[in-house]
């Protein structure tokens, strides 16, 4: 139910080590269709005992074996092997084999990040960069950081939600500024206006936006208030 679009629900995770475990479990809880690929027997066993269905034990260094797993149907390939060298090599192999897939890799230093980018990863997340960022934020603006933590971390508390404005909603056709979101205890942070482009706008950029059905709006608020609001916008009339 949390899915953004159906096609993105198919994810391959390479590596069931430190990072793979956490990500795989989280994704499974959210109802993603995940496949795990490991080349290490022990990690393979771990994955088995954690009740994952689609697990492959293959040598990721060999292109033939990678080709056998039909990776074209997957939207996202996530490389989170514990060994950095393997990760870079794997990213390179995947890019050369599957030109159109979306590859996400983890890195543990600047040099590796550069290599991964060169190898063709679409997104690289630097282990230490995000942490360093966090420390910086804790020092610089502690309250805001705690709030942001909630956005990406915990399941309760104040969080983000993306909602698509349904057909016939009372929001349809209104200007973003004219709607009093705070009445519903949620705040509009930004939106994807399908009329203009597919990219994300923050409300604070100061550009007037017209809400149309089909647009994606992003709100923050308490989790249940957000749920309520996403029900509310399906209604045609603004009752409250």
């Amino acid at each position: 139910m949390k899915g953004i679009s159906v096609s993105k629900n198919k994810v391959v995770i390479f590596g069931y080590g430190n990072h793979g475990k956490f990500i795989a479990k989280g994704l499974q809880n959210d109802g993603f269709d995940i496949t795990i690929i490991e080349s290490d027997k022990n990690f393979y066993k771990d994955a088995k005992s954690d009740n994952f269905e689609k697990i492959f034990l293959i040598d990721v260094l060999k292109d033939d074996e990678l080709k056998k797993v039909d990776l074209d149907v997957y939207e996202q390939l996530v490389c989170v092997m514990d060994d950095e060298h393997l990760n870079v090599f794997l990213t390179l192999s995947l890019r050369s084999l599957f030109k159109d897939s979306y590859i996400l890799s983890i890195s543990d230093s600047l040099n590796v990040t550069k290599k991964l980018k060169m190898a063709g990863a679409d997104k690289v997340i630097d282990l230490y960069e995000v942490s360093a960022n966090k420390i910086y934020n804790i020092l610089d603006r502690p309250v805001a950081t705690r709030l942001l933590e909630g956005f990406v971390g915990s399941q309760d508390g104040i969080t983000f939600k993306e909602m698509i404005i349904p057909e016939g909603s009372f929001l349809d056709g209104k200007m973003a500024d004219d709607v009093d979101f705070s009445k519903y205890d949620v705040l509009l942070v930004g939106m994807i206006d399908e009329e203009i482009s597919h990219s994300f706008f923050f409300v604070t950029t100061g550009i007037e936006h017209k809400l149309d059905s089909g647009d994606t709006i992003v709100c923050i608020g308490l989790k249940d208030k957000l749920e309520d609001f996403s029900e509310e916008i399906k209604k045609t009339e603004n009752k409250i």
Partner: protein
Amino acid sequence: MRDKLLLLVLSLHRSQKYKTYKQFARNILFDEENVYKRYFDLTIIFLVISSVMILVYEVKYPVPQWLDNYDIYFVSFVFAIEYLLRLWVYNDLSEIIIAEYNDARFLQKDFNIYSALKTGLSQKLKYVFTPSAIVDLLAILPAYRPLRILRVFILFRVFKLLRYTKSINQFIDVLVNKKFELLTLLFLLLFIVFTSGIAIYILEAEKNVNIDTLFDGIYWAVVTMATVGYGDISPVTDIGRAISILIIISGIAMISFVTSVIVSAFSERLNELKDNRIVEQMNKSRSFLIICGYGQLTKMFFRQNRKHIENYVIMDSDISRVEAAKKDGYTIMHDNASSFETLNRFDTKNCDITLLCMTASDVENIYITLNAKSISRKIKVIARVNDPLNFDKFNYAGADETLMPGKVANTMIYTAITQPTMYKAVHAILTGKSIANIDEIHVHHSHGIVGFQIKDLDFKSSKLLFIGIQRGDEFIFNPPSSEVIQPYDILLVMGRKISLEYFKSMHEGNISVKK
């Protein structure tokens, strides 16, 4: 007489006013924090410099009477007062007497005020013989007119300036450390100077017109030995020249020896001196970061250069990493943050210290956390936890914030997969991209917006999104528009950097416009 003295001491002891005055004098002389100390110091420095300038000027030119009076009486008078003040605050005479009086009463024996007075005064006498006190005293002497030779003592006023330079003290410190070597050399030097001085006197006093007294001989020995060789006195006999050859050679050897001793003493302590300098600078800055470990995380931390991180010092016990950091241009100390002495050098009482434990070892990080917390609870500790199993231990150790690089990265990857659009937004906010900044407005008690209602602050027209208020430990999300802003609230707003800056500058301090 005795009773009168005791009565006087008792009244001083009880007088609050007396104590305040004494404390004030103490602060002005010693307390770096005191606002007046700065002015006091500047005055003294000005007096010293002007006094020396007058001394130099009057060698060749006549000095007006008022300037001479200023130099001799006013400056000396101020210095005399300073001297007496220092003597006064050095110890508490009355307290010593009172303490002995109480002891005597307790033991029911006769109280002898003079013995107590003696203890106190002998302490003061001890102060009188410290180098700085002697310099102070000599600086007053030129005021005594009849002895013109005392004018030269004005130069001692320059020595008063030494109080304000730390490097001289460090230099002396280094020399004291090499006391043994330097003293040995000094004795050897004296031995050679005297023997050759006496020898030249005995051998040449008759034949050499330039050598009249023993002093001439010793003077010649020193000048020759130091390889200065003015040439006003030179040996005329063969044997005299032979002695010259000997002391010139030994002189060269000796001087190079002294130089090398001093140089090696300095290079030994150079790092320590540098570290001292860093610690001093940090303590002066009042609020700073101590970063333990120069690893990946620390490097990354410094790459987040959205705002320049100014007051920080890195510490690492690994010399190769210290070298690397120095090469990269960071302030680093080669020291072990887990030792009590290292952290205790920082002014933990008066400074806001934030300690970042960023080493790759949990054992090390926990130890540093405990060490910091044992020195002062005030030190804020942000610790890196490498193994999630150790998380609780860090909380027990008292870390204020903990952070697991693995977990943070995992969450980010997870968000990137599940909410790709959001990931961009969150990432933009986290990294403080200019379009979307979440920032805090800290409302201090005299802030312009205290007492305003939320609806009065037109966030919308400032292009800001108001998210909520942090009040104490509570976070109020989207408070009603009638909510009144209280002092010490932290307002959380989102928006472009320029909007935030503008909003802040608009409301900063305009106390009068209250609704």
